[in-house]
């Protein structure tokens, strides 16, 4: 009951300060939105001007949109599309000329005008566009053979070609290097939501150390120890209070990103285990900092620096895959790296609870060490 009284007081004090509602709950979601919009969409955009009015022209536009890593965006005129390419709104542009269908029906060649940007994406975009165009070209070539043999219309011949393609006995299955299921392509906010959740939970737990320091500075912590309550009960109350706050923050980020951005959080049990264990590590680190420093002015910036540094090293600002092997190994000094690994198992590889057990066990180990040190330090600073 004493523990619950401390938990309730922690929550009351935290949410009585209105700015906390902004920093703990609103700001993380705003940043997920911002980072998702800025960096989340890896698809290249292609502007398309469709002057043709036939079914084949429409099929080509659709095929462009279906190309992996490519989004097709329609423009009304070549001029507006060219401006969009120049300004970088789209990575490339394609003009489908008028009488596209008619020329193909007549067996005549058709020239498509392609506008590219001189940037690093250009080769990739060009290959994707060429792939869509050549796929349609090979279908039409096959259909023309069928048409001449069967004396039928091109549309009917195309239908037969597509039917044969669908029934083909050859199937392609993509596997990852380790033989597992190939990673699913992620939505615009999927990666930013999980990495930002880790960043903010850790950061807010660390900066929450100022609450413990204030409790000490006011003499309230010492007074709590003068009551028939043990140091362990007092620390447990403080830890659970801070833990509940970080879990509320996590839950809100998960729900908000799921409802608003359709972020997939994978296996619920696995995700819950990662969030619970990582939050406890964050709270342990925050409470330890709260026992190591004697003023809020010292602990606040230290918490901020440690939180941001760990997030940067641990893959919450840039994916760990982008780091060299040695750096990736060093990154696993931080709890963020283990939690990011766990989220990769769950969200990218579609793994279940079993795939994150090792990561969760290591995170629990971090939490035990940090909380033991924090209990020892708190007792020491209050009774020294």
């Amino acid at each position, binding site marked *: 009951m004493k523990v619950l009284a401390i938990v309730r007081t922690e929550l*009351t004090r935290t949410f009585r300060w209105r700015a906390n509602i902004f920093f703990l709950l609103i700001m993380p979601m705003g940043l997920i939105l911002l980072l998702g919009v800025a960096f989340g969409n890896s698809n290249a955009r292609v502007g398309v001007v469709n002057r043709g009015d036939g079914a084949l022209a429409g099929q080509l536009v659709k095929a462009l949109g279906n190309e992996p890593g490519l989004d097709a965006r329609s423009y009304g005129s070549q001029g507006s599309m060219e401006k969009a390419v120049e300004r970088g709104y789209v990575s490339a542009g394609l003009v489908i000329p008028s009488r596209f269908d008619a020329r193909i029906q007549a067996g005549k060649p058709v020239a498509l005008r392609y506008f590219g940007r001189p940037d690093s994406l250009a080769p990739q975009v060009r290959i994707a566009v060429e792939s869509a165009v050549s796929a349609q070209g090979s279908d039409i070539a096959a259909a023309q053979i069928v048409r001449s043999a069967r004396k039928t219309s091109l549309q009917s011949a195309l239908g037969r070609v597509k039917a044969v393609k669908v029934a083909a006995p050859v199937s392609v299955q993509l596997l990852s290097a380790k033989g597992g299921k190939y990673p699913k392509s992620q939505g615009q906010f999927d990666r930013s939501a999980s990495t930002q959740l880790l960043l903010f939970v850790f950061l807010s737990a660390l900066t929450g150390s100022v609450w413990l320091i204030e409790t000490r500075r006011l*003499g309230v912590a010492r*007074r709590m120890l003068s009551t028939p309550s043990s140091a362990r009960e007092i620390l447990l109350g403080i830890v659970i209070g801070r833990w509940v706050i970080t879990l509320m923050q996590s839950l809100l980020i998960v729900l908000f990103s799921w409802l608003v951005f359709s972020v997939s959080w994978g296996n619920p049990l696995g995700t819950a285990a990662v969030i619970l264990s990582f939050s406890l590590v964050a709270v342990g680190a925050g409470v330890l900092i709260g026992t190591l420093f004697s003023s809020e002015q010292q602990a606040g910036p230290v918490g901020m620096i440690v939180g941001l540094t760990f997030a940067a090293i641990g893959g919450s600002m840039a994916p760990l895959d982008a780091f060299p092997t040695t750096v990736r190994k060093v990154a696993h000094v931080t709890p963020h790296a283990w939690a990011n690994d766990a989220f990769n198992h769950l969200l990218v590889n579609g793994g279940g609870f079993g795939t994150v057990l090792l990561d969760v066990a290591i995170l629990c180990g971090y939490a035990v060490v940090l909380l033991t040190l924090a209990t020892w330090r708190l007792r020491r600073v209050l009774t020294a």
Partner: protein
Amino acid sequence: MSEPVLRCQGLRKRFGDIQAVNGVSFEIAPGESYGLLGPNGAGKTTTISIVAGLLEADAGEAFVAGERLTTRSVAAKAAIGFVPQELAIYPDLTAHENLSFFARLYGLSAKQARARTEEVLEVIGLSERADDQAKTYSGGMKRRLNIGIGLLHEPKLLILDEPTVGVDPQSRNAILESVEQLGERGMAVLYTTHYMEEAERLCDRVGIIDHGELKAEGTREELVALLGEHDKVHLMGTGSLEAAANACARIGAVDAASAGDGSIELLVKGASAALPEILTTASEAGVSVHSVEVEAPNLEAVFLHLTGRALRD
């Protein structure tokens, strides 16, 4: 005689090179008010911290309501209400929330906590402001709330560490009246102060502490009797007060002399006879005396007699 509420035996505590508490022993009976009187740095707060279970003594032991007291002893702490010198309250919580919170930490059930919170709010006169955040209170109101927290579980021993420091005279008087009433209710009180008049007014017995040692203890009368026929003499003046105090201390009738802020305090046997010599000595030492006061002996004089320095030093 009934079992003492608090029994301290040979308490010692050292911080580095400083012996903060050196062999302090005393007892407090049920319903008794006991004052620890001494200047800043005398060892009062260290003694109180040990007795409140916040600090482990290097040697010696303390028992509260028969239970041995350590920083981990829950049973002994249940009998203590501790009111620290600083305002140990949450400023962003209301008086009601602060009291309810500590009531639960003192082990009261939810129902008991609700009832005692209301009672204590009445006692400390904050019922009408109970739902305002403590940061909106005056200094005196915060002090009263600080004391009220210590009363929640109706402890056998209430420890008050200099509760009137930094308080305006009106609030100070209100606090002293509250403490007097607690004594009348049968609660034992351990009160530390460096104000002689508070100790004289509130305490049944006083322990005089200096440099970590309990120099003497007893009722006011018993302590004053230690002085014999001594009077307390104040010389107000300007000049070399320190040198004059040292010179006066060499006079046979002067038991102790101490220079302070614009005055010299002397403990003198037969003040009326010795006064001319004292004035001459002070004048020769370079002090221009403006006025002289002779007082009947009090606890301040006892402190001067026992330690050779004034309480304010």
